[in-house]
């Protein structure tokens, strides 16, 4: 017994070493595989606050460019609205038609405005921290978009901050379609360029042109249909030759991201519930068959 205590006392720092390494490894693997802990990421309150202060300070420096972009975007949208209004009026001859539709559309969404407080671009696994959390109604798996297009999906939620997996992350997987043609595929990012992602699994019989708009499909339970993702830049064959892989020029400038909004869509949640119920019942069906055989 005396020898044992002496042994422990002599080598206590090695036990401490092993203990600390084990804690580190637990943190590492938990973060990568399981979304339980927000404490040791930038979604925790202290780190989030510090980043918020620093991002507020730096936001003044990029204000000019952001303003210019917003003005341009506004102008573009205004023109588009005017054009669409004219077309709509010509078709329906009803001035109130659009207003009624708009209210219906808006009541199904709730948009939560948020600011980006930290952002990375150069890693394989990029993350964005935003300054809204569970107290503001943000939940896991909500979609995040900005004025120029899709940003990503909420991954971890803290009380006042959340971490978003942007399109620029190898784990990101967003269902997209080619606007007006309705062929769909999944958007992935392969590292490298910050403005190009790849749309996989587009069927080979799909017809489209370079420059076609790529939008969210609304099939996933995260984004409503029709949010801009980017434009078709190039087309490749997939590795197995069974489908197309489309290089998409992303419309969102991830290097200059400040104001985003989290999309809280009640109808999407209902849709997800139905899908979950359906998959469950199919599983049930499968086991039933297995037992009868």
């Amino acid at each position, binding site marked *: 017994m005396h020898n044992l205590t002496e042994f422990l006392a002599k080598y*206590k*720092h090695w036990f*401490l*070493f092993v203990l*600390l*390494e084990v*804690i*580190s*490894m*637990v*943190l*590492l*693997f*938990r*973060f*990568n595989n399981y979304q339980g*802990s927000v404490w*040791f*990421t*930038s979604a*925790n309150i202290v*780190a989030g606050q*510090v*980043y918020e202060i*620093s991002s507020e300070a730096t936001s003044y420096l990029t204000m000019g460019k952001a303003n210019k972009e917003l003005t341009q975007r506004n102008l573009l949208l205004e023109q588009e609205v005017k054009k669409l209004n004219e077309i709509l009026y010509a078709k329906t001859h009803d001035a109130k038609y659009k207003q009624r539709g708009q209210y219906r559309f808006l009541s199904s969404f709730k948009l939560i405005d948020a600011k980006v407080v930290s952002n*990375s671009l*150069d*890693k*394989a*696994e990029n*993350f964005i*921290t935003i300054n809204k959390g569970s107290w503001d109604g943000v939940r896991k798996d909500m979609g995040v978009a900005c004025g120029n297009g899709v940003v990503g999906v909420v991954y971890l939620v803290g009380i006042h901050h959340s*971490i978003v997996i942007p399109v620029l992350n*190898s784990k990101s997987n967003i269902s997209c379609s080619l606007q007006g043609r309705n062929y769909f595929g999944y958007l992935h990012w392969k*590292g490298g360029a910050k403005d190009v992602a790849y749309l996989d699994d587009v069927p080979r019989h799909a017809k489209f042109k370079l420059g076609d708009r790529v939008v969210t499909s609304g099939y996933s339970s995260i984004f409503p249909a029709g949010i801009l993702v980017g434009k078709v830049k190039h087309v490749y064959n997939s590795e197995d030759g069974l489908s197309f892989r489309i290089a998409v020029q992303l419309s969102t400038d991830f290097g200059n991201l400040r104001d985003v909004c989290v999309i809280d869509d009640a109808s999407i949640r209902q849709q997800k519930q139905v899908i979950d119920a359906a998959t469950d019942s199919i599983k049930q069906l499968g086991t039933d068959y297995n037992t009868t055989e």
Partner: protein
Amino acid sequence: MNIDIVKIFGWFVVLILAQVFVLNHIHLFGVATPLLYIYFVFLFRRNMPQWGSLLWAFIMGLIIDTFSNTPGVSSASLTLIAAVQPFVLRPFVPRDSAEDLQPGVNTLSYVQYLWYAATLTFIYNLVFFSLEMFSFFNILTWLECIGGSTLLTLLLILVIEHVRSRV
């Protein structure tokens, strides 16, 4: 002794702030990021209790991780560095030196210090980038990151040591 703890704490805060606000945003040629905070471990005196240096290193790694969204990566690597630091230091220490020698270009010579710092920096970067790229492995990027960051970090540390030795 108390002055020493205050000094250590000072370095602790300054290095973390510098890393989080400035150095984490530097990516020279897309590969080299200076990881200056490991300089903190290089400063540990020879007679510093091992459990103390391990704990300091672990906490620092944890804070850096929290800010850069890499849970466990730098805490694991920094704890490892703190554990091997006395063994790396031993061959470079002059025979008749003080018991509480603090590694630096003043106490060791320039060449000795360079070897000491280079060895530790290399081990650190090797472990750090291996852990970080766990899921997205690409041997070329891995080598570039290790090489680039080791050189850049070492350069910064030598500059700081040089300035400190003049003061």
